[in-house]
């Protein structure tokens, strides 16, 4: 079960605008999927370390050397809205 209220809450976290119809379908679909994944509770995982990454490597760093990076114009070339050397966005603070 995944209620419409839960859908709305998660959609807000995900910054995803859903129509009424999408909300209804999402409630149904997510409910079914979550019911399916509940079977993981059958597995005894006590003391098991979560596995987030399969390759046994850690802390891959490089030397802090300046390297060429994208010129500003190339970096901004896909900007939906640009203002000088800035991405233009709606105000963040009132």
């Amino acid at each position, binding site marked *: 079960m995944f209620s419409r209220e839960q859908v709305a809450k998660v959609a807000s976290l995900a910054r995803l605008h859903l129509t009424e119809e999408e909300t209804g379908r999402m409630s149904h679909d*997510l409910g079914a999927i979550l019911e399916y994944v509940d079977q*993981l509770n059958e597995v005894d995982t006590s003391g*098991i370390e979560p596995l987030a990454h399969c*390759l046994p490597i850690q802390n891959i760093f490089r030397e802090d050397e300046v390297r060429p990076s994208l010129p500003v114009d190339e970096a901004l070339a896909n900007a939906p809205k640009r203002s000088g050397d800035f991405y233009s966005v709606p*105000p963040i603070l009132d």
Partner: protein
Amino acid sequence: MSLIDKTAAELLRHLAAGDVTSEQVTKAYCDRIEAQDSRVQAFLHFDPRRALEQAAAVDAKRRAGHKLGKLAGLPVAVKDVLCTRGERTSCGSKILQDFLPPYDAHVISRLRDEDAVLLGRVNMDEFAMGSSTENSAYAKTRNPWDLERIPGGSSGGSAAAVAASMAPLSIGTDTGGSVRQPAGYCGVVGMKPTYGRVSRYGLVAFASSLDQIGPMAWTVEDAAILLEVLAGHDPRDATCASREVPEYSKTVRTPIEGLKIGIVPEFFGSGLDPQVESAVKSAIDVLKKQGAKIVEVALPRAKYAIATYYIVATAEASSNLARYDGVHYGWRSLEFSDMVDMYSRTRGEGFGAEVKRRIMLGTFVLSAGYRDAYYVKALQVRRLIKEDFDRAFEKVDVIAGPVAPTPAFKLGEKVDDPLAMYLSDIYTVSTNLAGNPGISVPCGFTKSGLPIGLHLQAGSFGEETLLRVGHMLQSHTDWHERRPALQEN
């Protein structure tokens, strides 16, 4: 025999010998695309003029006696999820419909360095999320063996391009089976390397701990040639391995003495199409006749792989797709009230239904109060799934089974049932969860002429083993020599 019926290996030999020019080879494929792609719909972006320009440039290099790369003059189709500088990279999504990356993905640089011809960009499920390529915002790619059926997904365009002889080689990506499953459905070879074998720099991310780029071709030898080019360390991908790249293209032809093949009895249970079962078992028999021994192995937690995958992959996707917010690139909604509304409307308008579903699921399983019960739990089960594989690979060299439970299904058949669609990945997702390599090799056809794929998986960095076993199968079968009966215009 026409140029488009030859393997990549054969074409490379002919090009090197001067029997044929890259322009001739590339033109043959361009002509084929023009003749067939209106029906198959594999290509999203195809510009024959640009392809032929690249081909001409390689021909000029060859005539001038310059040193040439390993793929010199050979056309390759690329899944539209790999950033290619100055070329539309849409990931099958409206949200990136006009996106022109300012840089090349590592594998694209590798193709250029080895003088390949970038033939065109092929269709995919949106952001690589799907098992049928029906989730593309742009086109519905058809299976060349039956145009009413799906080619598989998410690398459906990559598989169909090769299967319809529109490209000798293609590149796909595999997060839960998205190279291997379409390869199986389309009767071609498709391989997912070990996690970290190929750099993900420039691969538009779906699930960062699962995604891998892989080759698709008619033959295992061709896949080996392409993998050798793609693989290797790249300092720009912090998750990629430093290991040396073996000479896959050379070792592929050496059979494995004393090969031990693991069979998991549960893989052959109910839900498996009897014709698929029969073809897969026959393929295993072909390997037995070459001296392989069959050993029963257990993967007790494999049955939880789909549930585990759909928590882990969607969680990672929800994070990776947060960047599509209308700020730096891609679609921005035209009407909104404030910044947060801009994000929400942009994403609501730009993403398709499956992508939204997965973002929602992923966001939920990571959210406060649910993270431990879902996400952490899934990662724990993931470790157990990997340990099951590690134990099995102590006893066997490869595990063999079907790549999908059925042959290619019809367009529209599963679009309304997301869970049924997810279950078609049942044999492939565990490979990604464990970070292991896997390959699909053609092993037969159904009575109605639909391809069936054999799935082989090996332990970490077992690519050479997989390629050699795949070649052992192909050198004693001719499934890979059949071609779909596409009507000429």
